[in-house]
């Protein structure tokens, strides 16, 4: 079946919906999601969204920009960080005006709280910059965008899994996938296609990400021979619920929670004397694991305590109701009375599909634009987060750059000639599905997936080193080969999740290989990428972005040096 639209957005999280909403001003827009749109993982965002409104104390766009650049360990493109910090306040006001129910202070203004790495006056002390909706900020923004999209006539295709981007004369002119409910191929013809497919946390064993975060958009880009950029930079959030990885927002520490080791010591004071528990995530995650390695894990196990007892019941209830209930449900403890066992959990990928600040997907490191294709959100790499993203900068990235992508589309589709769909659009999908369903091979999905998650967690997470990464690379390549021989026992064409998981596993392995490869190549430590064998940042050789392409002879890397920005390089101390 062929569906005709002006704009197709793949992924219904905040980036996808904001792009859709913006484009719907003057275009026929559809959003396609492999889950129901309202299940997109943006709903799990808790703590807040950053903008220098200055509602609680003096704040400036320059301060926000500086924090973003320093937080990125100077790998952010400063022009992108400038766009983000400059447009952030207006983005918040526009969210407020379409109905996002921000928490309010006593004056009735949008309330703001502290967050990791956000400071006043270029690093002096923590600042209240995070706007929020208690600790369900993502959910509230998603719900508002969803309702506004409904009013604007945006059409939702739920539970459709996209497999291919379609091109004609080097223009992206549509996408092809299948309906999960029926396995019937679906082809979408459009003048503009937006990738807003989110991240790939499920590559790791312990993650805050949902089951749907399998890097599908990255695989779509790779199929289109596009490079992936800065994929070695994977963020581990310091405070996942031990064992489960469920996110406990940085807001917990912003509201006064502290991390403690087995001695009851507030150990972050040693690692970041100024910001302490509100240091950026890369630093806090490393500190936690270092404490554990030195035998100072709480209860002498491999976790530390997040101590929220000082906040008291009322404050927890008012400011952090969701995470309080998560802790009660899954650990059976009351955070007002008992410290919570936490450990780093895979949370976010800074790298992704290269784009410019207007959402255009770039074909190479020289910045050639691919007409008709756009990307926004976690799957895109505008290079605003560099080597480490600050908390609250993700949601604002989705809105600022989602809007910019939408505006570019509105401007450009008028002049765009409608390209013919390639004739084999449907059959590519049918062949892909049939070859899996009819395969006589016997490799099992859960085994390969667990193997991959194990390798990535043990050898390519917070601490990395050359030999381990080489082993991991070999291992992932072996798994990729085994993945060619998957045997599906479920032959159904109605909601065949084994088939879906087979396709997702293939996507994840491709992304995993690129993460490991990029990490192996980068022989320095920067932001979230820490190499025990190269523990220092090396600006002389490595102040550059990684681009990796899949080629017939294997992965191939190239680099793009960073342009100088207004903030000069400095050692990152907090």
């Amino acid at each position, binding site marked *: 079946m062929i569906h005709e639209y002006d704009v197709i957005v793949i992924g219904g999280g905040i980036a996808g919906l904001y792009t859709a909403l913006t484009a719907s001003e003057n275009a026929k827009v559809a959003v396609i999601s492999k889950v129901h749109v309202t299940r997109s*993982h943006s709903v799990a965002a808790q703590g807040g969204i950053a903008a220098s*409104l200055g509602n609680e104390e003096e704040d400036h766009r320059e301060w926000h920009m500086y924090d973003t650049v320093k937080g990125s360990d100077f790998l952010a493109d400063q022009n992108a960080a400038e766009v983000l910090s400059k447009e952030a306040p207006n983005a918040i006001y526009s969210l*407020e005006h379409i109905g996002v129910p*921000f928490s309010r202070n006593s004056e*009735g203004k949008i309330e703001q709280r502290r967050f990791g790495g956000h400071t006043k006056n270029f690093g002096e002390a923590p600042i209240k910059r995070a706007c929020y909706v208690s600790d369900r900020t993502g*959910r509230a923004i998603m719900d508002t965008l969803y309702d506004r999209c409904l009013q604007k006539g945006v059409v939702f295709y739920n539970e459709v899994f996209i497999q291919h981007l379609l091109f004609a004369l080097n223009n992206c002119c549509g996408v092809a996938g299948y309906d999960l*409910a029926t396995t019937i191929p679906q082809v979408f013809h459009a003048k503009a296609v937006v990738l807003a497919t989110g991240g790939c946390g499920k590559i790791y064993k312990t993650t805050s990400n*949902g089951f749907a975060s399998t890097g599908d958009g990255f695989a779509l880009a790779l199929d289109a021979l596009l490079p992936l950029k800065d994929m070695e930079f994977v963020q581990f959030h310091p405070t996942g619920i031990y064992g489960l990885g469920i996110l406990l927002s940085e807001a917990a520490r912003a509201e006064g929670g502290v991390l403690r080791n087995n001695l009851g010591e507030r150990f972050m004071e040693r690692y970041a004397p100024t910001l302490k528990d509100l240091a950026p995530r890369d630093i806090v995650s490393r500190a936690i694991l270092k404490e554990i390695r030195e035998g100072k894990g709480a209860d002498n196990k491999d976790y530390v305590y997040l101590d929220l007892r000082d906040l008291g019941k009322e404050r927890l209830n008012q400011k952090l109701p969701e995470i309080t209930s998560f802790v009660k449900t899954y650990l059976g403890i009351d955070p007002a009375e008992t410290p919570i066992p936490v450990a780093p959990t895979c949370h976010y990928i800074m790298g992704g599909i290269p784009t410019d600040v207007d959402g255009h997907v770039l074909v190479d490191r020289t910045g050639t634009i691919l007409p008709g294709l756009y990307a926004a959100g976690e799957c895109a790499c505008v290079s605003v987060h560099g080597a480490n993203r600050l908390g609250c900068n993700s949601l604002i990235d989705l809105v600022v750059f989602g809007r910019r992508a939408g505006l570019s589309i509105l401007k450009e589709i008028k002049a765009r000639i409608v390209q013919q769909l390639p004739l084999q659009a449907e059959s590519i999908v049918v062949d892909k599905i049939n070859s899996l369903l009819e395969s006589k091979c016997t490799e099992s999905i859960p085994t390969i997936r667990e193997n991959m998650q194990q390798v990535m967690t043990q050898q390519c997470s917070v601490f990395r080193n050359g030999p381990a990464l080489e082993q991991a690379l070999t291992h992932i390549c072996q798994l990729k080969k085994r993945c060619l021989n998957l045997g599906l026992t479920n032959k159904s*064409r109605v909601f065949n*999740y084994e088939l879906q998981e087979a396709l997702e596993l293939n996507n994840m392995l491709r992304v995993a290989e690129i993460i490991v490869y990029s990490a192996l190549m980068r022989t320095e430590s920067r932001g979230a990428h820490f190499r025990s064998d190269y523990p220092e940042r090396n600006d002389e050789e490595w102040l550059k972005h990684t681009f990796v392409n899949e080629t017939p002879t294997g992965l191939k890397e190239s680099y793009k040096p960073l342009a100088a920005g207004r903030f000069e390089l400095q050692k990152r101390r907090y």
Partner: protein
Amino acid sequence: MKVTLKVYRFNPQTDIQPHYDPFTVEAEPNDRILDCLNKVRWQQDNTLTFRMSCAHGICGSDGLTINNQSALACQKLVKDYDFTKEILIEPLKYFSVVKDLIVDLAPFFERIKSITPQTPQSTIVDLEKERIQTPQERSLFDDALKCILCGCCYGACPVMTEQDQEFVGPAAILREQRYIFDSRFADVAERLQILKKPHGVWGCKSYYMCTVVCPKHIKVTGAILRTKKKIIQEQQPKDEQQAGES
């Protein structure tokens, strides 16, 4: 320890009637019911079909009927049930079953759409500052913001399952309540009008089952009652209203 799930099965391609399959898995008291279902799917029978995504009760994918009550499989733990007996796992009631535990949610999302006014609010947006809303004003709809659109309340509502299939349903009214009580929205009259239609808010008979099962502990019935009160108030002439309230 061993836990046995008795799971509703229906494959539209091969079955005329649904049936139940027992599955026994190794589980701990603190494991989620979702973990048990995944063990079945990944270790025993990969045709077992159910939705899931975030696995911690925020996306709303895995609403099921567990031991005869609507609940999220990722929010309920083994220890929440008498696991010495079989735990009964069925799809959400009210909705039609597509396969095993998957129901057709189109009627649910259609209702969310149906309560959304077709004329969007003015798009003139002041980008230079926010509108003022006091914490007290905001508190009138704070509870409704917790809704994750899981559909558990539809499966639990006796009106929907037994009396009026067309009833707009708890989650939709709650969603509307969120906007009606938001001091920033100017389209309250239109929204009240939508809820006054047949099968609208007056369909609610206050069984309180939505409130009982709500995985986010929202006082759904209370929100519906406040919406009804608002409609009555709006119908009364202003002076009468003031007299009534004094």
